[in-house]
């Protein structure tokens, strides 16, 4: 057996450092801006940043695996096809390796835990927070948010605007550059309100008021889908939604109030949750 004096560790570390710097830069500056779900709202933009950070943290880890794999294929290949491959000595009790392994993994995990907590507590990150939200956007403390109730039922979402006479509509339209407080609930089974381009996702549970905040950006067409398997037509449970200029929203909501005046008269008073009757034929 020949003695190999090459410092493979140093070579791998240098290759890893160089490739990590290059690929991480590509991830942050090239791939990152195109990450889902886009910039349809402040929360969606925040999720783009979060996804970029997660990918940037994961990139050096992935590069370590790939660089070592490629280096091993090149440097440690069997150059004597008729010989018997001999494995290297097992690494046991190397305190330096153990220390750096624990240090690196602990640092990454603690950083991600802290980062995720801070980001989540800032504005809820577009997720449902239940009936008593603790992650309220700062803007909500100075200006009241536009309240919109999302009502799920088999198999469609409807939307109620308590600030506009409690009118209920088939379509979701929101004013641009506005903080919106969505109250998500259901009249029957569990649904999930998912407005992908707005970065909003919240379960719709019967008897539960699930609050989620979203701050709209400019005009946008987005898609509302149910993200919880809810029965026969779950796959068809989707609507388009629109973020429009404020003047256009004012005109639209006035038109909705007029069109749905007969239905509004029949609606129960606005409530955070509903326990609808009838169950005449319910088993």
């Amino acid at each position: 057996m020949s003695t190999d004096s090459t410092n493979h560790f140093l070579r791998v570390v240098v290759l890893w450092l160089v490739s990590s710097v290059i690929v991480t830069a590509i991830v942050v500056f090239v791939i990152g801006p195109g990450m889902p779900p886009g910039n349809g709202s402040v929360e969606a933009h925040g999720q783009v940043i979060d996804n970029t950070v997660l990918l940037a943290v994961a990139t050096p880890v992935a590069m370590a695996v790939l660089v070592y794999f490629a280096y091993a294929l090149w440097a440690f290949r069997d150059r004597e096809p008729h010989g018997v491959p001999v494995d290297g000595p097992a690494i046991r009790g190397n305190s330096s390796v153990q220390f750096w392994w624990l240090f690196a993994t602990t640092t990454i995990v603690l950083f991600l835990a802290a980062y995720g907590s801070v980001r989540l507590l800032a504005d809820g990150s577009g997720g449902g927070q239940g009936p008593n939200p603790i992650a309220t956007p700062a803007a909500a403390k100075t200006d009241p948010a536009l309240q919109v109730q999302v009502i799920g039922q088999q198999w469609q979402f409807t939307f109620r605007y308590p600030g506009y006479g409690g009118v209920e509509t088939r379509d979701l339209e929101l004013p641009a550059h506005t903080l919106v407080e969505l109250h998500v609930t259901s009249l029957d089974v569990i649904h999930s309100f998912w407005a992908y381009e707005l970065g909003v996702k919240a379960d719709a549970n019967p008897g539960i008021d699930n609050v989620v905040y979203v701050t709209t950006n400019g005009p946008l067409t987005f898609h509302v889908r149910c993200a919880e398997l809810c029965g026969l037509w779950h796959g068809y449970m989707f609507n388009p939604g629109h973020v429009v200029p404020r003047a256009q929203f004012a005109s639209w909501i006035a038109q909705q109030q007029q069109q749905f005046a007969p239905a509004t008269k029949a609606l129960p008073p606005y409530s955070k949750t509903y326990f609808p009757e009838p169950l005449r034929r319910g088993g």
Partner: protein
Amino acid sequence: MSSYAKRLIGVAVCTAVVCAAIALYIGLYLVNVPGSVAATPTAGASNLYLATVAAAKGTDPHPTWVSYYAVNADDTNWRHATTFVLPANSIVHVTIYQFDGQSGLRNPFIAQATGTIGNNFLLDGKPTQAIDPDTASHIFAIPAIGLSVPLVGISDNAKNPCANAPCPLSTDHYTISFSFRTPSKGLYRWQCFVPCAAGYIEGFGGPMQTVGYMDGFIKVV
């Protein structure tokens, strides 16, 4: 013939039988879909006649299930079909003979008609925009195009109700008619929104979850 050859033939035959059985099962599943009915063309429009009844025909696999049926204009020729073939971008006049009782709406918002021409419908010939949500028996809705029409149920005190399909016009019923413009070519689902499935949790199981009863497709061609 050697025992090995016999065993080989036996395994081959058994495999072929199992494969044939699986193919038959899948084939029957694929072809066992509710039938379709085409709207009757007239000058510049089409006509579609439907009926709703509290329980299907006695010969139906689920004779106790509430159901829609396709019928002729004079309420004859009841066919268990919930896929309706309609021409694209045209006016369709729909008439529904409603024989079922009242169930009530979970969401009163749906008591108002939308998506029809004029945003209303005729209830026994009378223009109507919305009904009392508690009297709703069924809804005919095509959510993708915003069409929704509430169907009033016959009173609990009706003197001559019809329990099972087919129901003659001499029994208690309402006649609901409306018109709407079909969208471009495609397959659209329609459904009822009233929790009208008797005996099922929240009234939304069984026929509400099965194409061919309170759900179906609009095939626009």
